[in-house]
């Protein structure tokens, strides 16, 4: 199952990986440039999952898109993780907005 945004930019999808039986969740976030996507990546990477077991996620940047992949045992844990990640992501995007586009120093 996948959900596409009204602007057809962000894609989200959930699947059950047949091999591992784990739930996988993908999120692609478009940024105006690859620089900004990378900045977001670096801000969000250090966050470890509070509950080590049962959930893991991977962040990567391709072009100007930040991609996040979750792998979880249970839907509830997945939901909590995605929720808190979105909060962090919102904070990052709002901060970037406040400071304006990246400048070369």
């Amino acid at each position, binding site marked *: *199952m996948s*959900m596409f*945004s*009204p*602007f057809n*930019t*962000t894609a*989200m999808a*959930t*699947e*059950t990986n047949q091999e591992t*039986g784990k*739930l996988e969740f993908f999120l692609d*976030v*478009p*940024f*105006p440039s690859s620089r900004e996507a990378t900045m977001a990546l670096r801000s969000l990477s250090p966050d470890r999952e509070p509950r080590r077991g049962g959930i893991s996620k991977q962040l990567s940047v391709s072009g100007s898109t930040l991609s996040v992949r979750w792998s979880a045992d*249970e*839907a509830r844990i997945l*939901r909590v993780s*995605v*929720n808190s990640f*979105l*909060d962090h*992501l*919102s904070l990052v*995007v*709002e901060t*970037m*907005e406040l400071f304006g*586009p990246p400048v070369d120093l």
Partner: protein
Amino acid sequence: FPAHRGNMAFPTMIQSKVRILLRLLWCKQTAGSKAFRSRLVLGIETSCDETGAAVMDESGAILGESLHSQKEVHLRTGGIIPTVAQALHRGNIERVVQEALDRSAVAPAQLAAVAATVKPGLALSLAVGLSFSQRFVRHHNKPFIPVHHMEAHALTVRMLQPLHFPFLVLLVSGGHALLAVARGVDDFLLLGRTLDEAPGDTLDKVARRLSLRKLPRCAALSGGQAIELLAQDGDRKRFRFRTPMGQTPDCCFSFAGLRNQVTLLIQKQEAEEGVEEGTVLSCVSDIAAATQHTVASHLAKRTHRAVLFCRTNRLLPSQNPTLVLSGGVASNQYIRKALAVVAEATGLQLLCPPSRFCTDNGAMVAWNGVERLREGIGILAPEVEVSYEPRAPLGVDITAEVRAAAIRLPSIRIKIP
């Protein structure tokens, strides 16, 4: 608890967070010091003696523009020499286009289309703009929109403020004079045009014959601008000229006869003052004033007839009908006032773009590109061959119908303070 594919419902909290994020991200992509709405068009103008380029968005906002005017060069030579104009276009076009792109911080890849003037104009000048544009669109693989110079002038006002079709437009410049009803982006009814010279050309030539360039305050001005400046201090009633085409009740124009009258008067005054041609006469301001007044009067009368024709034939809306004045000569404030008198007397709203958009520029071409892009008309693939046309009539010619109507004008006092 296992969740099967397709059973996972997205919790509303996640959905709403995603929506907020999307709005934030989308705003980020479109906001900034220059907010732009979707598609961008590069407009290029080289029909006569100005090389212009501009990058514009669909709302008519100019993101960046550049202009190189050859006015100074041609003033020194006393007129436009086509080969000189061509050489100047060739030498400046790349720089002008690059400046427009740089100032708008837009890369060629981000453009939706390139629009360029292909008709009418000086063949050698048009050729430069067209060949540059074709190379550009083929190199960057962009759609190409050929633009009619007069159509671009006619629609300029729509770039600056909302104006609905149909409207009456008087276009007066160094190369053209015409009265038309604009009914759509590529739908025009031609009511009248000049039978010989264009008023801008007449004013320039009179200025040259009067040697106005020799006056310090006129040194940097074009002929028409010099006439306007001197006329301010002149007595327009001292010399009387006959308004052209008094016997022909149509909407066409003629300026050659007037110029002849002016030339004969100048010769007479030179004899009276005992000076050679090339010396500035003492009565130069009065001659300038009389010439300008007669040009304005002729334009006003033809326009008045055009309005009456339109009303009779229901060519204009009953709600807020509009007269648009555009082209280089429209920068002349005296002529604007004369048209304002006509507009007021006939119940029309007069609209005139600011001077910098009345003369040739890249922005009006970009805007015409935007209008065509929005309607999806006249957009060509880059590989299509396009030729320039030095002569290109505007719209559908109904000058004969106007002549047949033989409308007599009620008198209006053209009194300009």
